[in-house]
Structures are given as structure tokens and as C-alpha cells.
């Protein structure tokens, strides 16, 4: 499968304001203009597009064919220059824009394919702009990877076997494709950034011989020369050591990774996260050249021609932020192969910049985050590699639970360390019982002075917040670089199962309390999430654009009690409201129309809404049955024979009876006549539905 390298821009609309718990709630106000909303409330983000992520002007710049040769000329292959369109919903796992997950992704490569994307999880963020003056999101880069599914071939007359080598080599029926992309230089003002990446075959973590061929990491060589540290902005001071992983997803060290397409013996090195760019134009440190070294059993192989990473702006753009090269035949076993990145300055001495660590660890299935339900414990399996094969001997993994500035401490390991055996270790993460918590420090409530004691909270912790912190895993091994994983953990509130089971016994206040809780972070953080545009007229009759809230959470919270369900219309209204919510909550995670934050809705929250709905319906059914029985009982003398609704003759007789009543009662008021006529119409409507059903029905029915 040839590799399609691309670059361009992306747009993202994160809910910036709403994601910070100490920001005040800002209520929906239909009088505010869209510009005012953006200026005063959402920090420039269009609320209609909250969480949306999309490619913008992304085009295929280069094709690398199966033999390692490539072209970036549209004349040589018309697939070059084709646009790639991609959109999805980028929802963060943990609060405060950490570890995004791209849901409901769809990709279209013009004249090649249309596909849906599996959920793509964001990597750590790497500080790829290394200077002293730029700051904020734009200095970071992160990567995503996602497999295609439901792929549909779109190859047509614009690209044909006759004019495209890509078409000749590609297996259009392959279900084994993926996209990798690196997003960087994101600017919170324009909400845009740059994206580089490729589309190629999906590579497993290990080949059939157990050799790791995907996600091999390259980290800063601990013996890096001082000159490089200075020129590359790699600092070491009291608070910051850029050679070590941090305790969060914001990493100050550098990391590359590569994968191997075994059949074609091609390696794909992803370099954006480790090049020490000097500014936001991707300027390189002066006079440095970066190259790839291949090592067999730790010894560098002499190559017939050096593998230079083309890092001028157009080079990065054409290559899609990756360097693809052929693995020479001299390297027999892939587990003997390692890579390094060397640099030379002014054509002088060569320095080792990055090297592969001896050890590495990943969570099973390459999991990068954890969602825990309140009070629950979860088993995690850790895999340990040494020299790209599972490590058979025992080694200790140190487990640490890190506090978080935006949340009380809510998740921890159940033991301080574990030991791997045969390449695998099992550990357990446990979550605080958020509904019945012991006393814990709350970093969100403001302290008036540094000397003030921290605020403590306990019991049922507020539901209108996000809870989470990091759990880390580190291999106990003296040699650098340090191998560490930081896993953001989100802890979700839970509705008690007993509240669902005993829903019929809960009173209005109890139900309202639970509903208010499970919807409280929607109400608190996202009053602007469920809006659409409307044009209204201003005083001069000119159109004025305003927001209209189509899912009114606050209004929804003002609901009726089961005790009021004798009033059928309010019951109907209430059920409609619940359905309106459930429709958006209950969809598949990969459905665009699912409420974005439903992916982390409180545990049992949807079940509680459903139970509440059925309890209302049950109450109505009970009331109707009681009324029906009472009617029959109170009129036994004239209701000897009950009506068989499936006996059409009886229903017909009922209609005739109504007709007679109308005819024989000339003194009936119009209002009374109207009631009888409406009954007649209702029976007609009932019969129409019955008759339609009867067309397809085969079983015998006899109901009263």
C-alpha cells in the first residue's frame, strides 16, 4: 500500500471558557449578539461548533510507493494534490483540554475513499517550539492515529490505473488503512493550526514473531552534548529538567517514534515532536542538519547514502512531517534494528541527539487514559518491552498517583509498585467514592491568601465539576532516559443502582435532586452548547443574527411530579423532554449527533432517566386502568358486555351508537356534539391504525 503524505491546516473549537471550573457560570441570554457571545463569554469560540475538529486545505503532497520511491508531482501521479477532508468531535478525556479524543471522525480523500474513523486518542503534548518568548498552545505539538472502517472506494475516472501508479499499487478493498496526523502551532485566536501526516497501512504493535514494529520511541540521548542542549533549548534547572518526562501530558522533553511496514521494509519516522524549532515559522537551529542512523545490535550501519531529514518549511510540508526510508537488506532481524537521530552543525562533528531506550512500557491496547466510575476499581495490564521484544525477566514498575491543580485527588494506585513477569504486569487503579467521600483538599475553591489552610470537602462532592488526576508508571532502571507514562484519569459520578430499582418510591424532590445532579455540569458549563442560529428583525426591520437555545437544560430541570400525571398533557410534555435528552445521550459514541460530553455522562445517568420515564408512563397506565375499572364497576347495569376492540363489528356498532346519539338528541349543545364527534374521529383513527396493522398481522388477537 503506497503512503499518502499530506499537510495543511486544521481548525478546532474547544470550549475554552467553559472548561475551567473557577470561571463563573454565564447563563444563556438570547439578547446577546453572536459577536458579544464570542467576546464576552466563549473567548472567541463559536458555541455552535464546540468540540468540532476539521481539516482545512489539507492536500496530498507526496506519495511513497511500495519500493520506497516517491513523487510529489501531480503530473506523475494525479493523486498528488487531492484534498483530504476530515471532521470529528474532539472531546477531552480529562478536564481542562487534556487528552483529547476524536469521536465521530469521517475522512474523505477525494477520488480515493470515504471512511469512518475509530476513536483517535491524542498523545502527550510536546514542546516543539523551543525559545524563551513564545508560549501557550502554539508551542506544543501532539499526534493522533486512527484506523479506517466502513471504507468506500471512490476511485473514478479522474484517477485511473493508466495515469496513476498509486491506483495500480493500492488495494482498494483493503480494510487495513489508518491515518496518522500531528497537530501543532494551534492558535487560540484563529482557532487554527498546522497539520502534517500520512495515510498508510495499519500496523500492529508487534509482528507475528513478537517484535515491536509500531510506536518505537526515540528519546533524547542522556549524554547529549552541552552545545546541543544550548542550541536546542533543552534546559536543566531546579524546576525543570527537559531530559525527563514531566508529571503531566505537557512534556518538555522530546520524543520521536517510528513504525515499520514489514513487507515493504519501509520505516516511517515521525519527527515533528522532536525537532527543536526556534519559532512558529518552523525555523531550525542555525546550520544544523538532522539525519537518521540505523543500528544493528547497537552498532551503526554504514549507509550508501545518508538519510537526511528534509526540514525546510516546504520539505516538512511535502513529507507530511515524516521521513520514510528503506531498511537495507543488511539488517536481517527487525528486533536487532534500532534507530537514532544524529545532528551535525556546519558540516562538522556529528552528535547523537536521540536514541531508542532499552526499555519501554505501554498499557495494553496502547491505552492512554482511564475513565473510572466513582468508588470503583479497575485492573490495568502493563506491557514491558526490552529492545523491542516483551521482556521475559522480572522488573519493577513504580506507581505514583499525582495530584492535580484543577481537581481534588480522586484516583490512586492500590499499591506503590508492581513487578512484571513475562512482559506483563497487572496493577489496579481505584477511584474515590464521589458521593460519599472522606475529607479531601479542594484546589478549586479560591484561597484568599497563601497562608490560608486549604479548603476541604467531603460527603457528596459537587456534581457540576470534573474530577481527575494523573496516575504514572515508571520503570525502575538506573540508566537514562527514564521511561514513564502519565495516564490522565477521569472519575465520574454515579447514580446509585438502588435509586433506579426503587424509582417508584422516590418522591418529586428526590428525583429532582438526582436529575439536577446528573445534568449539572451541562447546566453549569455548557449553557451555550445546544444552540442554533436564528435571524430576527431589528428595530429597523433588518435581519439580526441571534442564538436560539434548542435544548433548554434549565427549563428541563423544572419538571412535573409523578403525582401530577393525572394531567396527561403535562405527562406527555415531560416524556417528550426526557426523550429529547435521551435521543442525544443514548446514541453511539461515534455518532455526530450525540451530545459531545455524553461520552462522560455520570454512570447510570441514562438508566436513571429511562427509569424515571417508565415510572411516569407506568403511573399513567395505572391511572387509566383504575379509571377504566371504575367506569365499568360504576355502570355494571349497563356495561354487562365489555367492548372487544378487536371485534371490528363491535367497534362499528359503537360508532353507529354515537351517530344515533347525535341524531336522536337534537337538543345537544354544540360543545357536547363536538365531544361526541371527536370520540367518533378518535375511534376512526384507532381503527385506521388497527386496519393498517392487520395488513401485516398473522396472529390472532382478542383483547378487551
Amino acid at each position, binding site marked *: 500500500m503506497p503512503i499518502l503524505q499530506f499537510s495543511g*491546516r486544521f481548525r478546532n473549537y474547544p470550549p475554552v471558557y467553559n472548561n475551567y471550573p473557577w470561571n463563573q457560570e454565564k447563563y444563556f441570554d438570547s439578547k446577546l449578539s453572536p459577536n458579544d457571545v464570542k467576546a464576552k463569554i466563549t473567548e472567541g469560540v463559536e458555541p*455552535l461548533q464546540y468540540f468540532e475538529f476539521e481539516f482545512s486545505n489539507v492536500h496530498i503532497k507526496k506519495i511513497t510507493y511500495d519500493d520506497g520511491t516517491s513523487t510529489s508531482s501531480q503530473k506523475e501521479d494525479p493523486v498528488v494534490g487531492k484534498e483530504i477532508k476530515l471532521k470529528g468531535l474532539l472531546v477531552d478525556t480529562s478536564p481542562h483540554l487534556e487528552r483529547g479524543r476524536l469521536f465521530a471522525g469521517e475522512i474523505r480523500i477525494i477520488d480515493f475513499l470515504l471512511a469512518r474513523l475509530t476513536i483517535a486518542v491524542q498523545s502527550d503534548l510536546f514542546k516543539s517550539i523551543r525559545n524563551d518568548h513564545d508560549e501557550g498552545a502554539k508551542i506544543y505539538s501532539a499526534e493522533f492515529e486512527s484506523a479506517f472502517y466502513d471504507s468506500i472506494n471512490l476511485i473514478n475516472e479522474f484517477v485511473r490505473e493508466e495515469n496513476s501508479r498509486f491506483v495500480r499499487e493500492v488495494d482498494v478493498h483493503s480494510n487495513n488503512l489508518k491515518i496518522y496526523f500531528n497537530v501543532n502551532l494551534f492558535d487560540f485566536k484563529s482557532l487554527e493550526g498546522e497539520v502534517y501526516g500520512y495515510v498508510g497501512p495499519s500496523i500492529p504493535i508487534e509482528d507475528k514473531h513478537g517484535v515491536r514494529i509500531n510506536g518505537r520511541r526515540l528519546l533524547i540521548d542522556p549524554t547529549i552534548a552541552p552545545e546541543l542542549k544550548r542550541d536546542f533549548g533543552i534546559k536543566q534547572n531546579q524546576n525543570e529538567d527537559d531530559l525527563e518526562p514531566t508529571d503531566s501530558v505537557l512534556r518538555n522533553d522530546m520524543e520521536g517514534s517510528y513504525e515499520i511496514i514489514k513487507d515493504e521494509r519501509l520505516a516511517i519516522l515521525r519527527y515533528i515532536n522532536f525537532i527543536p524549532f526556534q519559532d512558529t515559522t518552523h525555523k531550525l537551529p542555525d546550520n544544523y542538519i538532522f539525519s537518521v542512523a540505523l543500528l544493528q545490535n547497537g552498532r551503526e550501519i554504514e549507509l550508501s547514502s545518508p538519510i537526511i531529514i528534509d526540514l525546510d518549511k516546504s520539505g516538512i510540508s511535502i513529507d507530511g512531517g515524516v521521513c520514510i526510508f528503506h531498511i537495507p537488506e543488511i539488517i536481517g532481524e527487525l528486533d536487532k534494528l534500532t534507530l537514532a537521530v544524529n545532528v551535525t552543525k556546519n558540516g562538522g562533528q556529528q552528535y547523537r541527539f536521540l536514541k531508542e531506550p532499552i526499555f519501554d512500557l505501554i498499557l495494553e491496547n496502547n491505552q492512554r487514559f482511564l475513565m473510572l466510575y466513582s468508588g470503583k476499581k479497575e485492573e490495568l495490564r502493563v506491557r514491558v518491552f526490552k529492545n523491542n521484544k516483551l521482556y521475559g525477566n522480572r522488573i519493577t514498575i513504580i506507581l505514583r498517583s499525582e495530584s492535580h491543580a484543577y481537581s481534588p485527588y480522586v484516583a490512586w494506585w492500590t499499591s506503590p509498585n508492581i513487578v512484571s513477569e513475562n512482559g506483563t504486569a497487572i496493577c489496579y487503579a481505584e477511584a474515590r467514592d464521589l458521593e460519599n467521600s472522606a475529607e479531601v483538599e479542594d484546589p478549586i475553591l479560591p484561597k484568599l491568601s497563601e497562608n490560608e489552610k486549604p479548603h476541604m470537602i467531603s460527603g457528596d462532592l459537587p456534581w457540576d465539576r470534573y474530577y481527575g488526576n494523573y496516575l504514572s508508571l515508571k520503570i525502575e532502571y538506573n540508566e537514562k532516559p527514564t521511561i514513564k507514562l502519565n495516564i490522565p484519569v477521569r472519575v465520574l459520578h454515579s447514580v446509585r443502582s438502588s435509586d433506579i430499582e426503587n424509582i417508584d418510591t422516590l418522591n418529586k424532590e428526590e428525583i429532582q435532586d438526582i436529575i439536577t445532579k446528573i445534568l449539572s455540569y451541562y447546566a453549569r458549563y455548557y449553557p451555550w452548547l445546544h444552540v442554533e442560529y436564528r*435571524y430576527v428583525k431589528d428595530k429597523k426591520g433588518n435581519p439580526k443574527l441571534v442564538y436560539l437555545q434548542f435544548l433548554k437544560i434549565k427549563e428541563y430541570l423544572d419538571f412535573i411530579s409523578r403525582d401530577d400525571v393525572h394531567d396527561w398533557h403535562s405527562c406527555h410534555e415531560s416524556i417528550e423532554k426526557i426523550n429529547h435528552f435521551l435521543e442525544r445521550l443514548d446514541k453511539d459514541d461515534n455518532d455526530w449527533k450525540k451530545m459531545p460530553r455524553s461520552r462522560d455522562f455520570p454512570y447510570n445517568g441514562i438508566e436513571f432517566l429511562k427509569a424515571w420515564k417508565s415510572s411516569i408512563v407506568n403511573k399513567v397506565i395505572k391511572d387509566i386502568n383504575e379509571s377504566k375499572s371504575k367506569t365499568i364497576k360504576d355502570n355494571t347495569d349497563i356495561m354487562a358486555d365489555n367492548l372487544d376492540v378487536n371485534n371490528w363489528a363491535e367497534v362499528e356498532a359503537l360508532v353507529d351508537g354515537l351517530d344515533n346519539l347525535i341524531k336522536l338528541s337534537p337538543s345537544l349543545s354544540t360543545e357536547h356534539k363536538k365531544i361526541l364527534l371527536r370520540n367518533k374521529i378518535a375511534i376512526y383513527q384507532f381503527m385506521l391504525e388497527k386496519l393498517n396493522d392487520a395488513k401485516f398481522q398473522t396472529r390472532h388477537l382478542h383483547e378487551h
Partner: protein
Amino acid sequence: LNRFFGGISLSEDFDRRKNITLVSKNERVNFRRALVALNTADFRFGGDRNDKPFAGGVSYWFKQDEIHQATHVHRGPAFLTWHRELCNRFERYLSSASEKLVDKKISLHYWDWNEDPSNLFTPKFMGNLSGEAGDPWLGASFYNPYPKNQYYRGIHAFDSDHINPADPPISLTRYKKDGTLEEYMTKEERVPFYTDQDIIRSENFSQMRLKLEHVHNYAHNYIGGTIGDPHTAFRDPFIFLLHSNVDRLFAAWQLRKGKEFEYRLDPNKVYGSEKDTVAKGSTSPFVIVGIQTLLSPWCGTGYPYDTTKNREAGEREEPGVNDVRPWTYPENWHRDPARPHERPKNSLDPSVVTPRLYDKLPEGFEYNYHLARRI
């Protein structure tokens, strides 16, 4: 027939759109026959209903509902221009059907909504005005109320099990209100009714399009049933008579005689402050289409066939809509160099700005009829 309206002869003149109540019996028959023809095998887009990812084999008639449902350009600056493009394109199909049947062109005539259209609703023209539409549409398979094991489109546009555009709808209904549209709006709905003159007198495009869309919305409800739901409205042939009238009033506003109104035929001036509007909202599902936005689905997805290499980020203004063949895979008409008329365009394109010629524009104003476009 040789009547004169506003100094324009109607006699056997196929170049102009006419009040449907005033066209000859023969022309009305041709109009109906051409509509019916558009739902026959002779007028069907390529492919098969089971094609993936985009259904093919859709009749030219059902295509209109597919287009309208996929795009839904309402409540925004491009409401009038987008529907003008839809009407213009449909008129070409209609005319080619008429040429095939009787070797005569035909225009997309209009229903003047100041008149009660009840007389149009007969089995020989528009079908019933209350309940199921019946013939001629039932007999011409415009809908199928008894699909048995056959495919059909559901009553609701979001019936996801029955949305294949190649299939006939399961119902086509109307519940026309009594009296005229104005009576319905002012007496029953108690909302303002803007007269033709109110609309044409509007000082600028923005005011005019708001008034016109407002009356248009109630015109949908006035006919009721299938037309009453904006997601299914284009399943009823009457919709084109309605929208031709909407376009006529837009044309009248543009064609007013006088130096001060000449800007209304200038693409760069006609839309006033809304000229630079772009699509607003999410790529799905809520989009307000701007004047700069390419008209969809005809603009297709992806770049036009020329090139994008000289375009900057954000320069292209594509709405997020569902794909509709043949402006997507595999036909890609919008990118086919052999189809220059399918080239993507926005509301600034002269073919959109220049109105079609109508037999008569509302009284009370003078018009430059000669500046309108003939078929």
C-alpha cells in the same frame, strides 16, 4: 390566446414564466405531462438505488426532494438565491421533458399567492387539495401509499430506515386552508402578511428577503400536509409553483425601474451588507448559508476541477451538506471539464443574480422587463 400583461404578449411565448391560472389549457396539460415525465425512466440520474456510498437511479423529480432535504437553505442570506438556482435548474429539466414530449419548451410557471389556488387542485392538474393528493401524482408514482414489500420514503424525513432518495414517498397530502393566503395569515394565524408591494418597496435586500421568507413560510403551512413540513416539501409538485412566485417577487424587487434601483442587478451591490456573508454554524447539522457560500449540493464536495493551488486557507466557502449525485462520486459533474455549466458557483454568479423573465410583476411599480433573462 393573445393577452397582454404589462405590455408583454403571452401568446405561445415559452420564454417567460406565467401565472399558472392564466396559461392555456394546452400549456397546463404540457406542464403536468412534463412534470410526470420527470419521474419516468427517461429522466433518471445514473446508477442504482443500492449504490454505495451514494444512492443512484433517482428520477429527476425525486432528485428535487433529495437536494432540498440534503441542504435545507433557509433562514439566511442565501434563501432566495439558493431556491432561485434550484428553480432554474428544475426549469431546464422540465423544459427538456416538454421538448421531448411535444417538441416545445416550457417555463416554470407560478402561483400568485394573492389568489386562492383551489381551482388548480383537480385530478387533471395538481390533484386533491385536502387529504391524499391522488391523481395525477398517484398514477404517476409520485408517491405510493401501499408499498407492501416495496421500498418507500417515510412520512418523516428523518425516518432513517426509509430515506433512500430513489424510492417514492409513502404519502403526499395537503390540507389547504380556506380562503386566500392573506386571510389565513391574518385571521387564522394572526401574523403580518406582507403584500407584494410591501416586499418590493423594501429598501434593501436584507429587509426584502426577511419579509419574503416570512410569507413563504406561511404559504407552506397554507397548503399544508407534505408541503407544510420543510423537510418533505419538495415531494409535492405544487412547491415549484409556490417557489416560482417567491422568485418572481425577488425578481420584481430587482427589476424596479429607476436609476436608484440599478444596483440590484449588480452582483457586487445587490446583496448590500450581506454580500460578504459566509456559512454560519456547525458543519452539521445547523448551517446558515451566506452569499459567499458555494451553492450546494451542486458545488459538490472537494475542490472544483480547476485547481486549488493558488487558493489560501478559508478562501473557499463550502457548506457542510450531504452528498447528492451526480455532484459527487462517481459522476462528479461539478468537476467535469465537459460540463462548464456545472462549475461550482455562489450567489454572486451572474446566472443567479439575473432574474428570469415573468409575464407580470406586481402592480404599483415600473419594471425593466427587458433586463430579465429568457429561458
